[in-house]
């Protein structure tokens, strides 16, 4: 084309060492290069891990650790499949639905009340709830739960899970690796970008999950997390040894955490107006049925419906009384959101129960909508009682 392109100085300088070296030397060089590269990689990696063991740097929990609990519960659920007279309920949700031992909440009370009223020969509630488990994770694991054939599914929907903070910071896109291939078209139509899941990451996760490399994957992620802890530990230790003022990282982290939670001081902790707005803003102003996140909820319910498993979605109580005090409560907007959620759930074959205003302010022990428990008033018991009629109706239909 006569474009006047000339190689750059660097290009023309690429002398062919290959031509000046004997073939034997050239081959030997490449061989030794490869060997030393592999050896150095192995030695340095091993040295890093050994150094962290020696200090010692603790092994943190990582997001994929929850797979262990998931696998165990799925195994238990599948083992009891087909037992006559047994009602098996799968409960999905976040920490508000979690039976943590400290607060034996909804699951416990629901089971007691069901046993008192219905007396089935056996009843088990399999609690798949996990801290920060949100809309996408429920979608990712829906088919595996359906495979274990529960009699029906309860989904506790925390309104905070619609917030950007939750979807961008707390989601576990790696769970997509365990999704059935037949569901991939459905997943691709959902707003995966909201949790940073791109098509290439999805393919990688699918390969890692299906290729028998799960344990290695978790090990690498854990060691990487340890390396991060080592950095902070070194920073803090150096600061402690050399100075008397507090370490920036520690104070900054605490400050950032405080800012992100935006919690008002004094027990019990409550969100500030800014905090509540950032977590519930979209919900309070009214969500449309076309909201991308509602589509994720709809797809989850649809998965159970297609497999013939009745599903009840209930909105986990939120601190409406506190919103009112903050001047944030918009009954119209909230009603619109509830209508949208109801529309999506019922359109996908599920049942809907709105418990968002079921508890007073005193029913919450913290800013994260976790319930109080005690001798005088047990919020979990109250929620279970409100769930009971719907659950009983679904069990009778079974």
């Amino acid at each position, binding site marked *: *084309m006569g*474009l*006047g*392109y000339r*190689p750059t100085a*660097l*290009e023309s*300088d*690429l*002398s*062919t*060492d*290959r031509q000046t070296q004997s073939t034997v030397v050239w081959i*030997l*060089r*490449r061989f*030794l*290069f490869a060997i*030393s*590269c592999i*050896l*150095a*990689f*192995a*030695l*340095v*990696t091993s040295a*890093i891990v050994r150094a962290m063991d020696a200090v010692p740097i603790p092994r*943190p*929990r*990582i997001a994929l650790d929850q797979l262990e609990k998931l696998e165990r519960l799925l195994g238990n659920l599948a083992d009891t499949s087909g037992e006559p007279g047994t009602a098996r309920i799968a409960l999905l949700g976040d920490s508000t639905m979690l039976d943590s031992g400290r607060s034996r909440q909804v699951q416990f009370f629901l089971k007691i009340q069901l046993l008192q009223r219905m007396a089935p020969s056996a009843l088990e509630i399999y609690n798949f709830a996990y801290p920060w488990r949100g809309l996408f994770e429920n979608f990712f694991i829906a088919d595996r739960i359906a495979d274990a054939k529960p009699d029906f599914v309860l989904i506790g929907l925390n309104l905070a899970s619609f917030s950007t903070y939750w979807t961008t910071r707390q989601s*576990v*896109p790696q769970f997509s690796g365990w999704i059935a291939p037949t569901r991939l078209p459905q997943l*691709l139509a959902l707003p995966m970008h909201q949790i940073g899941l*791109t*098509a*290439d*990451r999805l393919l*990688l996760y699918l390969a890692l999950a299906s290729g028998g490399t799960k344990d290695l994957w978790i090990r690498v*992620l854990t*060691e*990487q*997390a340890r*390396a*991060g802890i080592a*950095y*902070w530990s070194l*920073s803090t230790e*150096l*600061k402690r040894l050399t*100075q008397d*003022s507090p370490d*920036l*990282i520690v*104070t*900054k982290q605490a*400050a*950032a*955490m405080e*800012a992100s939670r935006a919690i008002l001081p004094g027990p019990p902790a409550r969100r500030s107006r800014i905090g509540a707005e950032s977590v519930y803003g979209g919900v309070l102003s009214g969500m449309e049925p076309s909201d991308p996140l509602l589509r994720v909820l709809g797809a989850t319910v649809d998965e159970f419906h297609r497999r013939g498993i009745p599903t009840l979605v209930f909105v986990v109580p939120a601190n409406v009384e506190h919103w009112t005090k903050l001047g944030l409560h918009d009954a119209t907007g909230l009603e619109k959101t509830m209508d949208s959620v109801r529309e999506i759930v019922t359109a996908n074959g599920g049942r809907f129960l709105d418990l968002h205003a079921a508890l007073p302010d005193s029913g919450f022990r913290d800013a994260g909508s976790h319930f109080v428990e005690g001798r005088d008033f047990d919020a979990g018991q109250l929620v279970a009682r409100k769930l009971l009629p719907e659950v009983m109706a679904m069990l009778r239909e079974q």
Partner: protein
Amino acid sequence: MLFNSLQFAIFLAVVVFLDRRLSRRGRSGLLLASSLLFYSLWYPAYTILLLANMAVNYALLRAIERSPRPRVWLVSSIVFTLGVLATFKYLAFFSGALGLLSEPLLGWSPPMVEFILPLGISFLSFQLLGLAIDVYHRKIAPPQTFGRYALFVSFFPQLIAGPIMRGRELLPQLERGGTLSPERTRRGVWLLAIGLGKKTILADFLLAPYANAVFGTPEAALAPMQLVGMYCFAFQIYFDFSGYTDMARGIACLLGFELPLNFKEPYLSRSPVEFWRRWHITLSEWLRDYLYVPLGGNRRGRERTHLNLFLTMLLGGLWHGAGWNFLIWGGMHGLWLAGHRLIGRPRPRGDREPGLRDLPAILLTFHGVALLWIFFRAPTFAGAMTAVETIFTGPYNAGAWPVLQVGIVLLCVALQILERVGRLHFEAIRRSLGGVLGGVIEGAALGTILALAVAASGVGGEFIYFQF
């Protein structure tokens, strides 16, 4: 797909493997297919946008070449390309800015419509515009096939974050199909490894956590912390961006192509003018050739020159992102450049590398640049002003210096100097490592960088469940 991800490593290995087994024609097809696959793996729907953007621009490019009124088609191309860019990148920003005016005056705000930002749209828009303008000025002939044009625009090593390629640089190479050689492969591997190290070990692991902590809550940081945080971010953004560019150049080398140098140790510059000749060089040259010069450059008097400089940098700032902080950052650089020109400071000769005697000028320039990065990085203008105020008013009590991070910053300074030494003595280093022992040393160094990069890759990632 990020260059520093496992999935990209697999993708690249497959592409390089196939590339070395195909004919020239086949290689072109492979590169185009892999470039489109690379793009579609991010957000499949936007591949249609990319293809449409390229198709329309190619039609306009051919019209510019053939029409007796090429200016009309050039203007159409510019309007179309900037229209796409404005829609997908700036619509929400402009709506917000309009709302600031219309809300108090008319009680009305324009609706906020926000799209997912298409990958690399700023870079490819500049590349599309540059080629259209060059063809209009008959500096280069347009690609004869749409496939070649599409490969020029979407060539995956430089699609996301540059370097911004000119037609005269890349098209002839694409025409030749790239030239593979063992030395180019060796250089490619090293650029890839160095870039990976810069990005994952330095930028993400060592620098970003502290910079994020400082800029996250500027009001809580003491002066020494704020100062070190500023240094950390200055080096973070450098190692992040230059690391990415190194990787892009390395990948291109593995495929037989050369991409231009985009960074030349910018923090060793002696003036703001020199800084912009060493920082994101391809962007600076693009802005100079397609914006500053058409605005009149320095040919229309002193005042107009200063105004042109300011406008160029203002738009350059906006190019970096749709936000007031970028606009302010660009504007401040424009003012600095104009001010520097106004007081008539002598420009260092371009061909003379800086030495020790330039240390005061280097320190002054570096601190000016680092200070302006605060406006680039801080989430709000108020936050930026708080940080600047803290840095200037102190107090700098001895007990508040973060020891580890000061050490890391000093390491970064040393590495910047080392980069210059490496660049100036590249040929001697290359030759000294040419033998068998050199192979062992190179292999060990490469293995070490890779091991450190893998260990450092988890920090800041979403996998870590620290909060529980």
